[in-house]
């Protein structure tokens, strides 16, 4: 690990992926694996951004469509599409992305607060941005991605069919 003369240059590893032409990153510690697209069972009455559930070696894992989550234009799933399996707290959740690019080491100092608006993605989901060479990598705050407004969304899903959530 590279060290400077004084102070420590802390680094973190980030899984970098592509979504609607943008480059995003999530901290590697919360990613347990990356799998190819597989048949996803649609779950009726779940929030809209929940694509469905999959069988991950005997476990039922919900899968989110990150495009829908961020309100980005919908896209086709291609051969490059992947599901990133993330573990946040006691939850395991899959996220569909357009492609997984690489794992990067980025210096923590290089992370800057997110600008108010990044290509339509609500700033609440973001942890920061960082430049890697020429490329701008948008770092996600996974907890927010999973939970922000998620409760309301579920509550609405309940109300729509006239049941208490």
């Amino acid at each position, binding site marked *: 690990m590279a060290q400077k003369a004084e102070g420590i240059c802390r680094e973190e590893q980030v899984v970098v992926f592509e979504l609607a032409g943008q480059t995003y990153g999530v901290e590697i510690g919360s990613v347990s694996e990356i799998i190819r697209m597989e048949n996803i069972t649609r779950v*009726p009455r779940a929030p809209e951004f929940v694509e469905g559930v999959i069988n991950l070696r*005997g476990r*039922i894992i919900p899968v989110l469509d990150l495009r829908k989550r961020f309100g980005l234009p919908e896209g086709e799933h291609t051969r490059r599409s992947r599901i990133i399996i993330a573990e946040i707290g006691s939850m395991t959740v899959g996220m569909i992305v357009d492609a997984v690019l690489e794992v990067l080491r980025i210096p923590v100092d290089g992370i800057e607060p997110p600008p108010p608006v990044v290509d339509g993605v609500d700033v609440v989901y973001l942890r920061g941005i960082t430049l890697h060479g020429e490329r701008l990598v948008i770092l996600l705050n996974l907890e927010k991605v999973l939970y922000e407004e998620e409760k309301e969304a579920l509550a609405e899903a309940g109300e729509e069919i006239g049941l208490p959530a």
Partner: protein
Amino acid sequence: MFSDVEISVFLDELEEKIQVLSDGFLQLEKEGSDPQVLQEIFRAAHTVKGSSGVMGYDRMSRLTHEMENLFDLMRQGRLKINEEMVDVLFEALDTLKALRDEVTGQGGPVDIEGVIEKIRRFVAGGERRKAGRASSPDSGPENVPPQGILDLTEVEEEVICEAYIRGQHAYRIQVTVDSQCQMKSVRAFLVFQTLYECGEIIKALPPAEKLQEGEYDNTFEVILLTAEDIGRIRHLLMTISEIVSVEIEPVVLSDDRVQDLVAGDSAEEQSDKKQPMEEPTGKTGAPLQTREAEGPPKQVKTVRIDVEKLDNLMNLVGELVIDRTRLDRLAEIFKSRYGSDDLVEVLDEISNHLGQLTNGLQEQIMKARMLPVAQVFNRFPRMVRDLAHKLGKEIDFVIEGKETELDRNVIEVIGDPLIHLLRNAVDHGIEPPEERVAAGKPRTGTIRLKAFHEENHIVIFIEDDGRGIDVNKIRNRAVERGLVDAEMAERLTDREVLDFIFAPGFSLAEQVTDLSGRGVGMDVVRRQIGQINGFVELATALGKGTKLTIKLPLTLAIIRALMVQVDKQVYALPLVNVMETIRIFPAAVQKIRQSEVIIVRGQALPLVWLAEAFGSQRKEAARVYVVIVGVGNQRLGVAVERLLGEQEVVIKSLGNYLGRIPGLSGATILGDGEVALIVDIRGLVSEFVRGDAVEEAAYAAG
């Protein structure tokens, strides 16, 4: 001083003994003195006395000591059981339970003096009688003077004999502590603790509780039952500081005593454990040798295990089943591609064998999760007795099928509903004795609680021969309560009317007692039982009695389901809620205002298209498959695209992230690895079968 594990083992044992005592008391009350029952409760009290003493729960030890004294006199026929005594015994039992709660931190300090005083009064009565017939030669001296030789009572000799049969020896151990010893109580405690690790202490002189308080001269004696080696025990004891000498000698019983006891024992108790000793043919003298000839008797060996571990095992097996199915499929493909190649056959064979193994494994794990319903049922006799006393009713409470096994999750849930139902039976069902006699019925009412297997279910009946329920009264009450209008009420069948009993807040009681009649209960009962995929039904005959039938799944982990297809996805409908499947022409669907109905055998059923309920489009077809589902008396037609057949499915949760989704109760993994969602029929029915819908449907059926 004791670890959590030790305390929890102690509490488990205590729980078991409390149950033994409770059962025993009830039996004594019903059938009078039965030597076997007396023996059992004597031993239970004795065990609790010993273990609570060691654990340092002195008051519990004292209480059980007094109880033991009383039982001993009863055992020897010096005291006859009477009603007053039974009440005191139950009071003692309640005190014991309160002491237990004190240990677990669930209750405050308990006063034991009152009940001990009452027990002593009986004991004193028995002692006097004993003094009168003290000349009897074979009743050994009971009150041994301190420092004397530890004498054995008949019971203790019997216990020793049984120990021989189990392959244990009895030793008389004399321990002497240093005369300068400052902490005699601690030394005695350590000695007891050491000995408990080696075997069972059946008697101590001075008595254990005195020893633990340090009230002894420098020497004390215990009788230990153990399979350990004398040398080792001596060594262990000598490692305790301030112990100056340990003398150990085997306890010798006279030969005839041994023979008598062994013979008497086998005649008296037909216990399986003692089968090998039933015919002790060549018993010439030395009882110690018989055990070697007979071999070690069978013992029940158990291990306590966290349910979570079993759940994990079950999950792993679930995965194994899926992979096995995939392997099966692969073998099929190979067979069709390469014909009867040797290797293909081997693969086929392995796949088959693996199938058998996984099925076996699955079954065994399921069994490991099962517990006998006795776990819950055992609490009831006492409850029914107390209630009956309180209400001045005479009730014969019969339990059948205690040994029926159920998944432990199910067991945990059914306790409360059963208590509700039994209370109702006692309070509302069974009439007061005079009323029964006046009606030409036997004075004593009967409540029968019965559990048994039926196919993939466990059925529990609660049946009473009481006054039954007046259906017309319910009909009127339902109209009064505005649940239904008068005209409608007239049209409902008795069965439908009885269903109002399960409506929230519905009560028939004229007066609210503290037991029941507040109108909370039956709806809760139905909901609780519904939550575990069971259902409850009620049948009644006025003046003759009421019968409740509860049907429960054997397990919560696996259910049988009807697999259906809707919008390219597979859904599982729990078979317990599926009444029948039919095929209809789309034209047969009638529309009443917003709702659709179909008429089946003259009855109108609300119809829902599963595709629409789940947010997609219905598919038009020449014929429509309709699955008729039901919860209680409510029926709903569910239109689906295809029926795929029945299958056992392993229930998996949708996980915390999705939480509860209305209309779905979980998911399962199919043989091909795909996920199928399990439909919550209960939810669907309550969503689509509304009061007005039923009314409209009934109107349509006209």
